[in-house]
């Protein structure tokens, strides 16, 4: 038993899991308030990372300015996607909506391949110190930042939904679109806002992952890993998304550990979440925190 490796992998699991959790939250946000499943979530993540990186590298902006620009850009992007692509599809069957976001993801992936290239690019050194020491453990600054940002984003989500007027409007829309519309909530704006928030937060996640690893188009794998996370947590539960993300992140790394130490099957890291997904779907399709969908005739 190699405990040092195990601890390392568990720490990795928590950090990656937090990021999965954040992206899963974005996914759940869109699903809950607009009933759309966003298969392009991973591409949103990659886009945020690329935009910020290209601002830093080619424009020579300082990191914080580039980060702010990325936030603004992703907001606009989310709104535009919602208006152009999803507004015409309101009321269409689930299959059409799923396909539309799949089409969007194909389109965005090719476009970003073209604009930003296929290779992985590292951020130039953003922090003055690359390693900080916490309680005797040497931790990379990027990891600390990613944890801090993740927790901050989750806190902001909570505050926004709990206390702000728009958060209340969004919760009302999620509860019942028809009732909230008749009470004067501008549904169209709520939808656009859900997409904007989701795009911004995915963009933040992308920047953070870009800082930890490097920016490349393969980062869109997060968009796929989100599915096991949201299924574990329940599709319409924001807390479930965080729990699910952490579970999947830890599970991946544990699978990697068990596989590397004992089983030697290989590639468990990337496939284990999908086996879990299938099992969860079989025994508890609405996840840990999701509301069961009871149909009455």
């Amino acid at each position, binding site marked *: 038993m190699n405990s040092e490796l195990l601890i390392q992998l568990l720490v990795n699991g928590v950090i990656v899991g937090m990021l999965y959790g954040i992206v899963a939250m974005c996914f759940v946000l869109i699903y809950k308030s607009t009933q759309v*499943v966003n298969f392009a979530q991973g591409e949103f993540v990659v886009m945020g990372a690329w935009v910020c990186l290209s601002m830093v590298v080619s424009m020579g902006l300082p990191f914080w300015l580039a980060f702010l620009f990325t936030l603004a850009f992703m907001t606009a992007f989310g709104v535009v996607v919602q208006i152009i*692509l999803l507004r*015409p*599809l309101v009321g*269409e*069957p*689930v*299959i*059409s909506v*799923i*396909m*539309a976001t*799949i*089409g*969007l*993801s*194909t*389109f*965005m*992936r*090719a*476009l970003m*391949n*073209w604009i930003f290239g296929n290779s992985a690019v590292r951020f130039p050194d953003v922090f003055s110190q690359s390693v900080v020491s916490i309680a005797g453990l040497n931790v990379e600054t990027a990891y600390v930042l990613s944890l801090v940002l993740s927790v901050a984003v989750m806190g902001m989500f909570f505050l926004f939904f709990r206390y702000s007027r728009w958060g209340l409007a969004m919760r009302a829309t999620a509860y019942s679109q028809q009732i909230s519309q008749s009470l004067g909530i501008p549904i169209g704006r709520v939808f656009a806002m859900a997409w904007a928030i989701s795009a911004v937060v995915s963009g933040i996640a992308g920047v953070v992952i870009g800082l930890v690893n490097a920016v490349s188009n393969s980062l869109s794998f997060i968009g*796929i890993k989100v*599915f*096991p996370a949201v*299924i574990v947590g329940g*599709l319409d539960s924001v807390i479930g998304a965080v729990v699910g993300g952490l579970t999947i992140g830890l599970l991946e790394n544990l699978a990697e550990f068990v596989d590397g130490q004992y089983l030697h*099957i*290989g*590639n468990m890291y*990337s*496939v284990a979440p*999908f*086996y879990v*997904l*299938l099992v969860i*779907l*079989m025994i508890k*399709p609405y996840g840990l925190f999701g509301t069961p969908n009871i*149909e009455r*005739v």
Partner: protein
Amino acid sequence: MTHVPNPRPTGDFRTSYAGDRTLFATRFETNAVIAGVLFVLVSPFLFSDYILSQFIIIGIYGIAALGLNVLTGMTGQISLGHGAFFGFGAFASAWFSSRGIPVLLSMPMAGVLTMAVGMVFGIPAARLKGLYLAIATLASQYILEDFFARADWFTGGTSGSLAETANLFGFQFDSDGRYLYLVLFWVIVSFVGVANLARTRDGRALVAVRDHYLSAEIMGINLTHYRILSFGLASFFAGLAGALYGHYLGFVSAEGFTIILSIEFLAIIIIGGLGSVSGSLLGAAFILLLPQAMETFANALATLVPAISQGTAYIKQMSVGAAIILFLVLEPEGLVHRWRLMRANWKLFPFSH
């Protein structure tokens, strides 16, 4: 949904149950199908190998898309793992034929084996629908991809496996022209089969499950049975098409059967028209020819704007995504619907109704 006037000629009423169940509604349709088959039969003597290879691929993709159309168009279940089943069929047929089973026999056998695998993965489909099912099939896509890379005995692992050429009593299907006949045979069998299915008890049950599954269940249709059945049928056609594809290329490797292929199959049925049998072929032709048309277009444009020349590969991929989106937003019922509108306009000209 806009109203499409019935373009059948005046006086052409269906007066008997047999008339209502005919395979081809009008004589024009019968003739068009026969003409199409004859055209493909003589095409090896008319066209270059390149064009023939396009016909072959369109036929193969058409069969696979037809399977997905049974699942998505007829039963209303979505699958994001169709590409992996296609790949499974290719590997299965290569494996069977390497065991000494004649290729022509191993193709349908691969279809049946894929059907069995598809039904196993379809078990979640008995409980799930819509979105949950899409996610479950996404998982099956990745699990199967992982299996391809891992199962050396079956797929040759990362190096891939060889698929022999088909032969019938010494007649080798080794050139494009000859292979086209083989593909044509299976295209006819599967399309007639599915067109027939739509007219049977089972086919109507599938459509009932799609239209309103609760009502269907109340009417006594066994949901679990029919959902798994449609999964099995879809996988059968995917496997058969995959087998044809593998033996056509002569070499099967796992890289070709990713989620992108699954998305292409979905694009084919969306563009062709959900639930439309002939739409599957139209969509396949569209999805295969679109990137090539875009390439020509991009090359022409590149002479004006040189920057585009490195982007041709990406323009091809983007065109597929854009086609899905545009069809969903502008023409959700697919090419078949467009064709019906054109036909109605032609019949009713100069009146609009």
